[in-house]
């Protein structure tokens, strides 16, 4: 082949290349159109319910007629997706600010690190009180509080992931953007978001899975001796549990399972399959995500038509966004001015934080004195013990099983989606069944609490162990077979080192999840019976119910401290070890 040496005047107009296949209406188009129509109708219909007025003096009464379940499920779903949308917007703004501003980065990233360790459920009360005050007399306040709880369980993770993809943008892509003088808008949407898209989608999916837990926990809540309830699956289940009606609890569990699987099938699978196109590898991948729904959508003409219809708007937006400036970095920076700016920024930020601390100290001092921290510190040790036992037992149980599954492609195909659903299924849904079991067998809640916490947390260990076992190259296993390395030696030399890096990732998530779960797992109710364990989770839960803010603040702060301490002292070291020695 050689470069053309004559100018091409005869060829078709360049725009004809956009046109693609002729727009033929197919049955796929009709189905997609109908689906979209139904979706819009449902959203509007369900969305109306969120602004219904209610008065705080009424006590919440949830109708547990199973016929109401579809509506309740739709309300719950709407909440989940609104929270996801908010988390995505937050991710873009926060991560972008942290990645672009050297000064903001120094505050935003450590803050994110701490926010990640704060037990979300502990703050639910504060959120409920605040939002009800914001929207007096409307259901919207409660709705916002619930969305806020889900949001806080999703946002930090996604933001961290996107921030690290922003800061680790391949050098040549950064240079490409600057050398060709991209506008900032273009750099963000053409380079930065696509580079981070896969991470964002997968993180979003994982966080969304974790969000169900908080949905269930936040729909029915009692603050300051008052019960609040929003229509939703969580509150439905809560009411059914309060009535001790196991059949209706079963209906709720079924609905929940349908929702988790349905959202996975209709939303996340297509999205992850679609995100494959953002893989920044230059070769065709062998293992790709597939989705029936995405294939169906692609077969219809709607994506193309939608692309063509929105093109003027997109172009207009890109044009308007030129005011945001060109992606360029000044070659000369005045060190004096930079330093002055740094000092001023540090002074203002430091003063604000100090002021906040002094104010908090004063508040606590006036109410209870700093001695309020003593009790949570002590009971925290009990919960710490539960977390340690949980992680240890889950490791012993699930690592061998995970390895077994991961080594067999056939088992993996079957087990992986199942485990994924189990991991996102809100464990607090199953608590009443467990309590019923405890009551029957006489197992004390102090021990049973570990089981409850494990219901949600253990799957992360299993899930990651499977992934780790899958990542062990086949030739290494063949070498072991060849050399006759079997049994304990094989585990010590190949299997354990091989799964270690993934296991550590799972362990961090599991232990973080367990801490959070302790808030709902150490105090459980079924019918008229309430079981209370000794522990930090029960302490926070108690402070929430009685609206004792100093105790709540102390409890949440101490739990954050434990989580951060455990991460720093144990998990992060293991992480470094895995990275240095056992990375395959």
């Amino acid at each position, binding site marked *: 082949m050689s470069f053309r040496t004559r100018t091409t005047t005869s060829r078709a107009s360049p725009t004809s290349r956009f046109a693609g296949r002729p727009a033929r209406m197919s049955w796929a188009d009709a189905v997609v159109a109908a689906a979209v129509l139904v979706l819009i109708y449902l959203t509007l219909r369900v969305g109306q319910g969120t602004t219904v007025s209610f008065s705080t003096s009424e006590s919440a009464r949830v109708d547990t007629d199973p016929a109401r379940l579809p509506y309740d499920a739709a309300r719950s779903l709407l909440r989940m997706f609104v929270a996801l949308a908010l988390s995505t917007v937050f991710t873009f703004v926060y991560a972008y600010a942290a990645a672009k501003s050297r000064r903001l980065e120094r505050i935003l990233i450590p803050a994110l690190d701490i926010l990640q360790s704060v037990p979300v459920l502990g703050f639910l009360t504060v959120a409920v009180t605040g939002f009800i005050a914001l929207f007096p007399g409307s259901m919207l306040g409660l709705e916002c509080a619930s969305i806020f709880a889900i949001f806080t369980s999703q946002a930090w993770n996604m933001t961290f992931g996107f921030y690290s993809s922003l800061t680790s943008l391949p050098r*040549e892509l950064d240079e490409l953007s600057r050398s060709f003088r991209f506008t900032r808008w*273009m750099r963000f949407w053409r380079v930065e978001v696509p580079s981070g898209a896969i991470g964002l989608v997968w993180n979003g999916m994982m966080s969304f899975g974790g969000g169900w837990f908080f949905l269930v926990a936040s729909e029915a809540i009692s603050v300051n001796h008052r019960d609040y309830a929003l229509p939703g699956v969580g509150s439905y289940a809560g009411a059914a549990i309060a009535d001790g009606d196991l059949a209706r609890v079963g209906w709720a569990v079924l609905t929940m399972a349908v929702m988790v699987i349905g959202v996975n099938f209709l939303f996340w699978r297509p999205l992850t399959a679609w995100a494959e196109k953002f893989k920044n590898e230059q070769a065709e991948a062998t293992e790709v995500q597939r989705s029936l729904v995405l294939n169906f959508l692609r077969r219809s003409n709607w994506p193309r038509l939608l692309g063509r219809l929105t*093109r003027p708007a997109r172009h207009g937006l890109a044009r308007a966004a030129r005011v945001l400036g060109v992606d360029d970095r000044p070659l000369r920076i005045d060190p004096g001015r930079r330093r002055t700016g740094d000092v001023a920024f540090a002074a203002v930020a430091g003063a604000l934080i100090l002021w906040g601390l002094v104010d908090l100290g004063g508040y606590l001092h006036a109410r209870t004195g700093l001695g309020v921290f003593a009790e949570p510190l002590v009971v925290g040790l009990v919960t710490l013990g539960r977390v340690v036992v949980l992680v240890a037992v889950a490791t012993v149980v699930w690592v061998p099983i995970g390895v077994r599954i991961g080594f067999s492609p056939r088992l993996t195909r079957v087990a992986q989606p199942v485990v994924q659903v189990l991991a996102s299924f809100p464990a607090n849904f199953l608590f009443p069944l467990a309590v019923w079991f405890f009551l029957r067998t006489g197992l004390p809640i102090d021990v049973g609490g570990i089981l409850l916490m494990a219901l949600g947390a253990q799957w992360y260990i299993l899930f990651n162990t499977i992934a780790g076992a899958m990542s062990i190259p086949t030739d290494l296993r063949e070498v072991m077979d060849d050399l006759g390395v079997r049994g304990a030696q094989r585990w010590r030399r190949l299997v354990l080192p091989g799964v270690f890096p993934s296991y550590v990732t799972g362990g961090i998530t599991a232990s973080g999840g367990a801490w959070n779960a302790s808030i709902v797992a150490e105090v459980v109710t079924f019918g008229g019976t309430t079981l209370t364990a000794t522990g930090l989770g029960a302490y926070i839960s108690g402070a929430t119910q009685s609206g004792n803010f100093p105790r709540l603040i102390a409890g949440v702060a101490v739990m954050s401290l434990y989580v951060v301490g455990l991460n720093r002292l144990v998990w992060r070291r293991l992480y470094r070890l895995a990275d240095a020695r056992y990375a395959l």
Partner: protein
Amino acid sequence: MIFDALRKLRPARSPRDRRPPAPPRAADGDVLLDAGNVTKSYAGADRELPVLEGIDLQVRAGEVVALLGRSGSGKSTLLRCLAGLIPVSSGTVSYRGTPLTGANPGTAMVFQTFALLPWLTVQQNVELGLEARGVGALERAEAAVGAIDLIGLDGFESAYPKELSGGMRQRVGFARALVVEPDVLMMDEPFSALDVLTAENLRGELMELWESGRFPTRAIMLVTHNIEEAVLMADRIVVLGSRPGTIRETFEVGLERPRQRNSAAFEELIDRVYRTMTGRPKEPRVPGRPEPAGPERRTYTNTPLPTASVDGLSGLAEMVAHRGDRCDLADLADDLVLEIDDVLPLVDALDLLGFGEVRGDDLLLTRVGAAFAGADVQESKTLFAEAAMGAPLVRLITTSLRQNPSGALRAGFFRDLLAHHYTSEQVDQQLETATDWGRYAELYAYDADPEEYRLDEGAASTPR
């Protein structure tokens, strides 16, 4: 189509697009890029470590300039300084007489790794530069299709980069740069990620296009470590020396295009450039006096270990031994299909160890070198151990360990010493080579976990 009709209705559309007013086309010989006394240094442990020093360079309209140098000579850094992507530490870079304050508006870059956005089609990739300038969609598509045709990519417009071969991907890189019609096309080792045949083909086509007079840019700046590529393409070859990068020599290439590889003048020029690249820097040397940095005066500060593995350098020694202890370097590299970048560190290593030396165009083995090449594993280890003590850093580590009562020292100790003279990347490289050599020579062992060097006594006396 509808768009065609729209276009006919509104013929006055394109001039309204806000394309920045193009500067008048530069006449041949006008200075486009001008670097004046440019230095570039990176922060070291206690002082700035220079990468480039005292660079004076001009790029004029109508010429192809090749920046040639070994890896680490700062040639890519210089290219990025000229493109306004990284700031210079001192000196000035100007485009058409205006000092740069940000990315150079008159250049477009072609990358070694292509830097295509995998989520965009070929055409969308090519349009990026125009989109950034706010050119309207229709005009943009037209220009992109023109560039795609020019570069021989027609038919691939709607393909995604991952469906293309390496050569086709780099064509997209060229089309993307050419479509914005920059004054200077900047190419950072554009052919080095391609296989030999593809690279040859693409080079040929590019130079054909350059000669045809339809090339959209006024000058080309090419960074390469391939001597033949430089001689094939450039009007002027600027050879950079290492540590710090300075302009060692400039060659004017007066050869007619297309250049004949087997012509005497071509081969002669290649040999001259080769000598400049392999030889020691030309320093004012008084005839009859010994070389300024003889083996006695070598220290770890002025003589870094070349990045060469023991296997590589003994392989080279054996090759030379097969050819009668002496052979032409350029021919050897050619026969082995190795780039000069791969061969030169090995040659340097042989030289440093006293196993070989470069005389003129030839590499010849010394007596020890010949013995090393012919030895079995145990003998070669003994010979290598003796020779390695002549390598400053290996000697430093060995003697430090011997003087230390415990016979062990943290790697951090040597890291700190080196950090005064090398960037952290170079420090890692130096220690990596020193570890490899010392381990093979059984002078010392290195434990990665505590990051500690210790004397290798066990291996020297009795094997466990």
